[in-house]
């Protein structure tokens, strides 16, 4: 078990992360700092690179993908993505992953118990059988699976989707990791189950003090669950915003467009939802300047020239220490009307 990180140290710190598949750079310099107990959301359309960030942090990119730049620090120690054995030691004990689709995330021919135990045994090889079993049951109880003793002997096909996701969360928190990366943990679940899983994650964070990175396309979910939101577009973080000012306070035109395309209950019928013209550019052929400029209603000729500057939208007030800096990567961030 890792020692509790000192509160001053961030649980996870990412600087200038770059990921490429072959010649195509899909993540182009991402910065991210998560303090213990903090919940940070990463949102964006599919293909914006958010899932790649999650896999890259774990060191589990699919074949052909590699981290080409940047520095990642977990609980104060630098991660070396070329040292597979060190990565194996880190995975599951300091950095854990909850994956997209609970239906395909469990080995169909191994019992639930053995799949949780695998995570425990890997990092505590001297744990006795009885201790492992007791801890597995304890974990299942903690994630809200009733009758843990019986459930541990069952196989994935005997579990519902929501129950499987709970079991996977149990796997992820088995070794009290410093950081939990949840990649679209609720997408494959039906709406009522989604809420239960989110509540479960929430209570675990409060109880264990684990830092959470929630990767999702569901901007509504992050605004409710997270302290801070990172909006990604074409492999870059275009806006970083405290979630309490997300609605009404978003500065980047892309974030605003995303928010406007959300269906709002109570909106008059017949009124069209807003939508973003065009599609995200292929990462192999990005437009010059701001990647969003071709689809942006606020774009000016100079937006297509040079990298857009990072603009500080508002400084955190002293009273709200947990509220981070609000920045946007847009030339006109302060001109876009908000509210």
């Amino acid at each position: 078990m890792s020692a509790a990180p000192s509160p001053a140290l961030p649980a996870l710190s990412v600087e200038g992360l770059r990921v490429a598949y072959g010649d195509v750079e899909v993540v182009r310099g991402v910065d991210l700092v998560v303090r213990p107990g903090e919940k940070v959301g990463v949102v964006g359309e599919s293909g914006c690179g958010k899932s790649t960030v999650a896999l890259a942090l774990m060191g589990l990119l699919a074949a052909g993908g590699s981290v080409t730049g940047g520095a990642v620090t977990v609980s104060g120690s630098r991660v070396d993505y070329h040292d597979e054995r060190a990565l194996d030691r880190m995975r599951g004990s300091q950095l854990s992953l909850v994956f997209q689709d609970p239906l395909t995330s469990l080995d169909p021919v191994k019992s639930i118990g053995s799949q949780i135990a695998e995570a425990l045994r890997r990092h505590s090889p001297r744990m006795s059988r009885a201790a492992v079993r007791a801890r597995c049951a304890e974990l299942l109880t903690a994630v809200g699976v009733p009758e843990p003793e019986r459930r541990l002997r069952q196989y994935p096909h005997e579990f519902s989707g929501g129950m499987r996701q709970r079991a996977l969360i149990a796997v992820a928190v088995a070794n009290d990791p410093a950081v939990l990366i949840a990649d679209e943990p609720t997408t494959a679940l039906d709406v009522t189950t989604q809420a239960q899983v989110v509540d479960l994650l929430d209570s675990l964070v409060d109880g264990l003090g684990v830092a959470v990175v929630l990767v999702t396309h569901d901007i509504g979910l992050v605004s409710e669950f997270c302290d801070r939101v990172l909006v990604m577009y074409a492999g870059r973080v275009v806006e970083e915003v405290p979630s309490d000012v997300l609605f009404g306070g978003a500065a980047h035109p892309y974030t605003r467009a995303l928010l406007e395309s959300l269906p709002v209950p109570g909106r008059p019928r017949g009124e069209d939802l807003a939508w973003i013209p065009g599609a995200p550019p292929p990462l192999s052929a990005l437009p010059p300047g701001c990647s969003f400029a071709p689809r942006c209603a606020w774009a000016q000729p100079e937006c297509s020239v040079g990298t857009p500057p990072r603009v500080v939208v508002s400084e955190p007030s002293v009273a709200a220490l947990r509220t981070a800096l609000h920045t946007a990567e847009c030339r006109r961030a302060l001109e876009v009307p908000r509210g």
Partner: protein
Amino acid sequence: MSRPTSSTSAALKRGAGALLGVLATLLLASVVSFVVLRAVPGDPARLIVGPLATPDVLAGVRTQLGLDDPLWLQYLHYLRDFATLQWGYSYSNGADVTAVIAARLPATLELALWAFLFAVVGAVVVATLASYRGGALAGVAKVVSLVGLGTPQFWVALVLVLVLGSSGLGVLPGPSGRLTSFLEPPPHVTGLYTVDGLLAGQPIVFSDALAHLALPAISLALIPGAFLTRLLTANQADVARAPFVTVVRSKGVSRWAAHRRHVLHNALLPSLASAGLVLASLITGSVLVESVFNWPGIGQVLVQGVQRQDFAVVQAFVLLSAVLYVAANTAADAVVALVDPRLRVSTR
């Protein structure tokens, strides 16, 4: 507890249905075999008595064989005789076919078992390495298995004898049966010389029997081995892409351990379904390979039966091979149902 009982009865029903299907297939196979037997243009009785026999003798044999009975009765007799292991008498020398096959069975069984062992071990090792390491190794494994699937086993046997056997490097004994002539076969327990040799504490007999086995068993193992290599490589490639493998890795399990524990395990299960095909390939192979090595098994009995136009031998052998094929498939299905948790009947 009502759920387990209902699922048990459902499984029983499913099992009974499968069994009925198997029986239907077997019955139809026996019809096919009977039709082919009756399609013989020549008169079987004439074949037995020879061209010089008098009509009286011919008629006597016809009655004896039941050839004057209506066809459906002949079929029923045929079925009864096959089921009660009375597979008739050789047209050429009058030997009891059942006894001949029974006497020769252990030799073929030993050969087939070793070939099976070679094929499975070889396929698991090559396929696992190919899908784990990927790259050039995977390409080589693919080419080797494609070539292996195309090899005429009897020709490979010939080449092996020429290269390694007595007429080549002389590393292994050539086509000279199961044991060197000055060695006594070990005391009969199982009929398999390698096993009996070990049981009797005769290491020389064991190693000599194994040396004699090596070349025929390799020739025999080639096609099923290549087939299993392709199947396992494809299965492992499919499983390795499954998200649960990433989840296993995210626990800190090394790539090799994840591959061994999860990918290989999941890839092996569906390959059980091809047990029948592997068995069929071993039976066919024994027919083609045994004569090259002068191996005294049932494959040679068949080849000799063919050369002597001995229909009784051929018919018994052919129907027996179909029965074994169906039995192997049924057994494999049963094993999968026991091993795969998704199909296993919940006993709790």
